[in-house]
C-alpha cells in the first residue's frame, strides 16, 4: 500500500465514521485526528518513492500540492474544532449539522486529494467536481438567504464550468487516442504527456480553451470569478479558508497539468499569452474591487482572486524562475490566506460582525489579534519578512527582466490592491474602538502556525524544499 492511498482513503473513511458521530466534541476530535493522519501521510509522501500507476501518480509536481493541502486541512480542522463550537453556542448553526459538517469536511479533503494524486484526466475531473459540489453544500450551511443565494450562484457557475472542463477532457482524450489507442491509456496523464508530441495540435488548443474556462471558473479567474466572493463571505469561515487556501490551488493544479501536456506539443499554440491575459485581468480587476468591499471576508476573497491571477500570470510567463515563483507564491498564498481567514474568524467572533465599518480599533481592544491580523495582511501584501515577498520579488523581477513593459501591469494591480488592503487594515486595527466586543473562542494556534511558516519561508527556505520546487518548476517547462 502506497502512502498516497492513505492520503485519499483516510479522509473518506473518516467521513463515513464522522457521519455516524453525533457529538460535537468527539466529532471534532476525530476530525482533527483524521486530518493529522492525512497530514502525516502527506508529509511522508515527500520522502516516499515516486510512483506512476494507471490511476495514480506521485511526482515532484503534485507532492508540493499534496503537502500544502494536507497541512492546511489539518490546521483548518483544528481551527474549525473551536470555531464551529462557537457557532453552535451562539446558535448560528443547529447542533444536528455538526455531523454533516464534519463528514463533508473530510469528504471534501478526500476529493481534493483524489484530484491531486490522479493520473487519469477523468479522475482529476471527478475529484475536483466532487470537492466543488461538497463546498457548494457547505457554503449554504447557514441557511440564511444570503448563504443560499451564494451557494446557488456557486452551484450554477461551477456546474457550467464542470461541463466545459469535461468537454475539454473529452477533447484531450480524442487527441491522445490516435497515439495511445482507445480506452484508459488515452486518459492517463503520464502516457499522454509522453505522447504529446504526436497529438493533434488543433485539438489540444481547443481543449485547452475549454479547460481554461472550465477550471478557470474554479480558480476564480475574472470574469469567471463571480461565485468566489459570495461563497467565501457566506460560508463558515473554516470553509472560506479551505476554499481560498486549497480548492483554488487544486483547480490551478489541474490546469497546470494540462499546460504541461500542451507544452509537450510544440505545434500547439502557446497557452502562455492567454494565461497572462486572464491572470492580469483577474489581478487588476480584483484589486479595484477591493476598494468597494464592506464585508471583511468578501474583501479577502477578492484578494484571493487577485493572487490567483498573479499565479496564473507567473505560470503564463513560464520559465524556471517564473514557474518557481508561481509555485512558491501558491504555497505562500495558501498558508497566508487561510491564516487570514482564521484571523478574520477571530475578528468576526470578537466584534460579532463581518462588516468592515463596524470593526475598528482592534489594536486597543485585542492587541494580539490585531498584531497577528496586521502581520497576516501585510504578509499577503508582499511585505517582508514573509514568504509572499520572496515570490512576488521573483515574479516581478523576472518579468521585468524579460518583458519590462509587461511587468508594469501586475505591479500596478498589486499596488492598487495593496492600497485597498492597507486602507482596510488600518481601518480595522487602528482608530478608536467602537461597538461591542465579545470573547474569542477560536483557537489561535493555526493562525500563528501559518504565520510562522510564512515568516520562515521568507527568511529561510530549506534546500530540500527549494529543490522540490525547482523540480516541479522544471516539470512545468
Amino acid at each position, binding site marked *: 500500500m502506497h502512502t498516497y492511498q492513505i492520503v485519499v482513503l483516510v479522509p473518506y473513511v473518516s467521513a463515513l465514521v464522522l457521519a455516524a458521530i453525533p457529538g460535537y466534541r468527539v466529532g471534532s476530535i476525530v476530525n482533527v485526528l483524521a486530518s493529522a493522519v492525512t497530514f502525516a501521510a502527506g508529509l511522508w509522501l515527500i520522502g516516499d518513492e515516486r510512483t506512476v500507476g494507471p490511476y495514480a501518480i506521485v511526482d515532484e509536481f503534485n507532492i508540493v500540492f499534496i503537502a500544502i493541502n494536507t497541512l492546511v486541512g489539518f490546521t483548518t480542522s483544528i481551527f474549525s474544532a473551536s470555531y464551529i463550537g462557537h457557532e453552535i453556542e451562539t446558535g448560528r448553526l443547529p447542533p444536528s449539522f455538526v455531523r454533516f459538517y464534519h463528514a463533508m469536511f473530510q469528504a471534501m479533503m478526500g476529493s481534493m486529494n483524489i484530484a491531486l494524486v490522479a493520473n487519469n484526466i477523468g479522475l482529476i475531473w471527478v475529484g475536483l467536481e466532487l470537492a466543488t459540489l461538497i463546498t457548494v453544500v457547505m457554503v449554504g450551511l447557514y441557511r440564511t438567504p444570503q448563504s443560499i443565494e451564494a451557494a446557488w450562484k456557486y452551484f450554477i457557475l461551477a456546474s457550467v464550468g464542470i461541463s466545459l472542463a469535461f*468537454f475539454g477532457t473529452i477533447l484531450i*482524450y*480524442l487527441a491522445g487516442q490516435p497515439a495511445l489507442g482507445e480506452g484508459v491509456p488515452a486518459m492517463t496523464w503520464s502516457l499522454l504527456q509522453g505522447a504529446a508530441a504526436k497529438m493533434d495540435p488543433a485539438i489540444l488548443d*481547443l481543449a485547452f480553451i475549454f479547460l481554461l474556462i472550465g477550471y478557470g471558473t474554479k480558480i476564480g479567474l475574472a470574469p469567471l470569478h463571480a461565485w468566489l466572493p459570495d461563497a467565501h463571505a457566506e460560508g463558515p469561515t473554516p470553509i472560506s479558508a479551505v476554499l481560498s487556501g486549497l480548492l483554488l490551488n487544486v483547480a490551478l493544479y489541474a490546469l497546470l497539468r494540462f499546460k504541461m501536456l500542451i507544452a509537450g506539443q510544440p505545434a500547439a499554440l502557446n497557452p502562455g499569452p492567454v494565461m497572462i491575459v486572464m491572470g492580469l485581468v483577474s489581478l487588476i480587476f480584483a484589486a479595484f474591487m477591493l476598494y468597494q468591499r464592506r464585508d471583511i471576508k*468578501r474583501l479577502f476573497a477578492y484578494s484571493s482572486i487577485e493572487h490567483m491571477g498573479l499565479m496564473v500570470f507567473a505560470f503564463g510567463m513560464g520559465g524556471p524562475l517564473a514557474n518557481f515563483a508561481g509555485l512558491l507564491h501558491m504555497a505562500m498564498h495558501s498558508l497566508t490566506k487561510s491564516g487570514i481567514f482564521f484571523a478574520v474568524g477571530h475578528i468576526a467572533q470578537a466584534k460579532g460582525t463581518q462588516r468592515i465599518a463596524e470593526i475598528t480599533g482592534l489594536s486597543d481592544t485585542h492587541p494580539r489579534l490585531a498584531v497577528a491580523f496586521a502581520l497576516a495582511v501585510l504578509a499577503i501584501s508582499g511585505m517582508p519578512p514573509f514568504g509572499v515577498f520572496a515570490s512576488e520579488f521573483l515574479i516581478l523581477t523576472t518579468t521585468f527582466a524579460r518583458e519590462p513593459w509587461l511587468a508594469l501591469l501586475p505591479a500596478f494591480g498589486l499596488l492598487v490592491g495593496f492600497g485597498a488592503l492597507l486602507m482596510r487594515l488600518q481601518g480595522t486595527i487602528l482608530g478608536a474602538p467602537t461597538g461591542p466586543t465579545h470573547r474569542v473562542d477560536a483557537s489561535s494556534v493555526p493562525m500563528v502556525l501559518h504565520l510562522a511558516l510564512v515568516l520562515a519561508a521568507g527568511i529561510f527556505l530549506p534546500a530540500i524544499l527549494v529543490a522540490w520546487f525547482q523540480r516541479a518548476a522544471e516539470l512545468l517547462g
Partner: protein
Amino acid sequence: MIRGYELSHLLAGVMLVTSFALLYQERIASVINTFAAQSVTLALAVAWAAFSQDRSELFITALIALCLKGIVIPVALHRTVVRLGIHREVEKVVGVGIALMVGLALTGLAQALLLKVTQGTASHAREELALALAIILLGFLMMILRRNAVTQVVGFMSMENGLILAATGARGMPLVVEVSVAFSVLIALFVFAVFVFRIRERFDTIDIEALDRMRGDAR
C-alpha cells in the same frame, strides 16, 4: 457499418435542430417537451454508438438519458411549472430572431473550429464533435437568454446532452466517465431541486432576477 457513422451524424443533427427549437420555443411547456425530444434523440444516438462501437456499457448511458432526461425530469418539470403557475411565462432577454442568428453563428464557429482538426483516425469523430460543440454552445446560449430558472435548468441539461454526445462520439472513452456524467447530472438535478425548492420557499419566485435583492455586498 459502412454508413454507420452517417446515422450517428443524422441523430446528432436532429439534436442540433432540437437545440435550435429550444431557442425558438416561447412557452415553458413546449421548452420542456422539446428538451424531452432532444434527450430521446440522444438516447438513440448513444444506443447506436453502443451498437456500432460494440460497447454494450453505453446502453446504460442511453437508458439513463432516455429515462431520466427523456421522461422523469420533463414530467417533474411540468409539474413544477404547473404548481408554480408559471407555465405561460415567456421571459426572454432578446427576440427569437436574434437568438437564432446568434445560434447560427455559434454553430458556424463550432464547425470552423473543428475543421482545423487534421484528418486522422479521430476524423470521423470530427463532425460529430462539431455538432456536440454546437449543442453545448447553444445550451449555454439558452441559459443566458432566458430569465426563468426552469428554462435555465433546461439549458444546462441541454449542454449536458451535448457533452454526452461528445463523450460517446469519442471512441472507447472509458465507462467511468459516462457514469460520472450521469452521476453529476443526478447530483446536479438533486441539488437543483433542492435549491429551486428552497428558493421558491424563501423568495416565492424562481425568477433569478428576483435574487437581485440578495446580491453580494449589501450596503
